[in-house]
């Protein structure tokens, strides 16, 4: 287990560096919410989820919905590092007609289960997947990553009620709780706390975890896999722009561009060449 956690930490570091490079190569983009979700994606894609890079459509796979579709670069990078396609392909991020548009598109890239980008829609799609699996008595799980900003959206709570009504304990949702949305802090723009109490009141099994601690994340997801009759939500406390000091916690870095000298200092911070 210790080795696994060490490996996941290394993978997360590599994922963060590669994601940063891909976004920068594309001329900038959603650094903030991509860098905050790194450990979550690393743990899911490099250990937890049953996926098959050799057969992305394998029906036995777990399903994944990136409801915060603007974190697409992280998912692309993770898929590349898992061998779905060459890492070098990430140079096509945001390029016209490429397989790597800013927001994930399932029709353009194998390995994407749902096209997202319009916030608030992912949890409903995950519910539909989970209802289908339960009705067929299949044990695949549905993982969904939500942004905290999109929790402002009413549809998320419509889906939360439905998941509870239908006892969708095969859903494991993880909130990238980086506390920052486009215009400012979440509690300033639209207060969403007390988040754990809200989800609990909506009939979910809710927990909180440090979203950059891979060991804690890993163990929390394993806990959530134990069926309780309730859908699972893990509130992963993260830092927007994590890993790059001048971006951390700053709403200004929800998306943005950097210059050449910033790029070099970022690479140093992210441990390039270590």
């Amino acid at each position, binding site marked *: 287990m210790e080795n696994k956690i060490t490996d996941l930490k290394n993978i997360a570091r590599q994922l963060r560096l590669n994601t940063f490079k891909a976004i920068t190569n594309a001329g900038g983009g959603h650094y903030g919410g991509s860098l905050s979700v790194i450990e979550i994606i690393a743990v899911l894609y490099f250990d937890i989820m049953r996926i098959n890079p050799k057969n992305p459509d394998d029906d036995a796979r777990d399903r994944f919905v990136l409801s915060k579709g603007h974190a697409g670069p992280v998912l692309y990078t993770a898929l590349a590092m898992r061998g779905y396609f060459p890492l070098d392909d990430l140079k096509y991020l945001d390029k016209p007609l490429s397989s790597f548009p800013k927001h994930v*598109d399932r029709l353009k890239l194998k390995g994407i289960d*749902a*096209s997202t980008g*319009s916030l608030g829609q992912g949890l*409903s799609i995950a519910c*539909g997947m989970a209802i289908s699996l339960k009705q067929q008595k299949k044990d695949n799980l549905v993982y969904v990553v939500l942004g905290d900003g999109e929790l402002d959206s*009413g549809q998320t709570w419509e*889906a939360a009620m*439905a998941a509870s009504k239908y006892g969708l304990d095969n859903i494991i949702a993880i909130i990238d709780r980086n506390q920052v949305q486009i215009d400012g802090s979440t509690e300033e723009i639209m207060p969403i706390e007390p988040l754990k109490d809200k989800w609990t009141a909506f009939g979910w099994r809710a927990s909180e975890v440090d979203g950059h601690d891979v060991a804690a994340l890993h163990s929390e997801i394993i806990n959530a896999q134990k069926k309780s009759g309730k859908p699972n939500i893990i509130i992963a406390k993260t830092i927007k722009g994590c890993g790059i000091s001048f971006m951390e916690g700053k709403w200004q870095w929800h998306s943005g561009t950097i210059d050449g000298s910033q790029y070099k200092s970022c690479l140093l911070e992210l441990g390039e060449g270590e």
Partner: protein
Amino acid sequence: MKTELKLCALTYGAVLTELGRENADIFVLEADLMKASGTRPFMEAYPDRHINVGVAEQNLVGIAAGLASMQRIPFACTMSNFMSQRASDQVTISVSFNKFNVKLIGCYAGLSQEKNGATHISIMDVAVMRCLPNMKVIVPSDHRELADALKFAAEDNGPLYIRMPRVLPEALFDDSYKFTFNKGYQVKTGCDLTIISNGISSLVASGVLDELEKEGINAGLVHFPVVKPADEEIILEAAEQTGALITVEDHSIYGGLGGLVSEITGKNRSAIVARIGLNDMFGLTASLDFQLDYFGISVENLIKTAKEVISRKK
């Protein structure tokens, strides 16, 4: 209205239950309007494939998308105004952009909402749905056509919208007519003008032909149940043969059947097009008959419009 109209819920509920028996992948989704759609028999027969999300149309469409992602065949129904307006972004992104095999049924469509009035009368659903890439759009005019459209939808792969009013006649056309996807139906050929209609308006339009004949006007009628993909050929033929077209629909004259026919004929400026429908107006709190008459979906207004277009041809 003299023709007897029957609740579409009877056909929707019965056909879906039949389809559900034949195909274990069929799901029915409701947003607290099972009473309007008529799917209680399906729920009783297949409770584990009947989902009711309450008054939450966006979630209705999203869950349907998720089911379709698992190769299931969801039929999601809510009132057509909510389907095309409240859930418009979910229909656009979760269904149309994802190209998920979701069947969207807009019930109580158009003026058939009657006294529920402006808040409930869909005036833009055909326009909205028609704009969406990957979406097919069907506007049936009788129960036989509705049943055939539903069966077609279950077989077809891809997003599809059916505009289902509260009521329709059992059978509007004679037995020789059979719904064919992607095809309009030439009910009658004419030489002075051609009326093009669908939905409940086809009932009104088919009743005007004899009246026009009495006025010395030889009018053709094209029934046009499949708005997208459109049978352009039948429109262009009618344009060529008669030089004047009148569209009739219980929908805004912008973007629906009238918009479509104008777009098609505009490509080669082949005919005068007059559009009958809601002209920049919301629906009313009134009976179906009153509203049809008020918005000019009537024999009187069709005769008046026919005379106008004929005089404009000269």
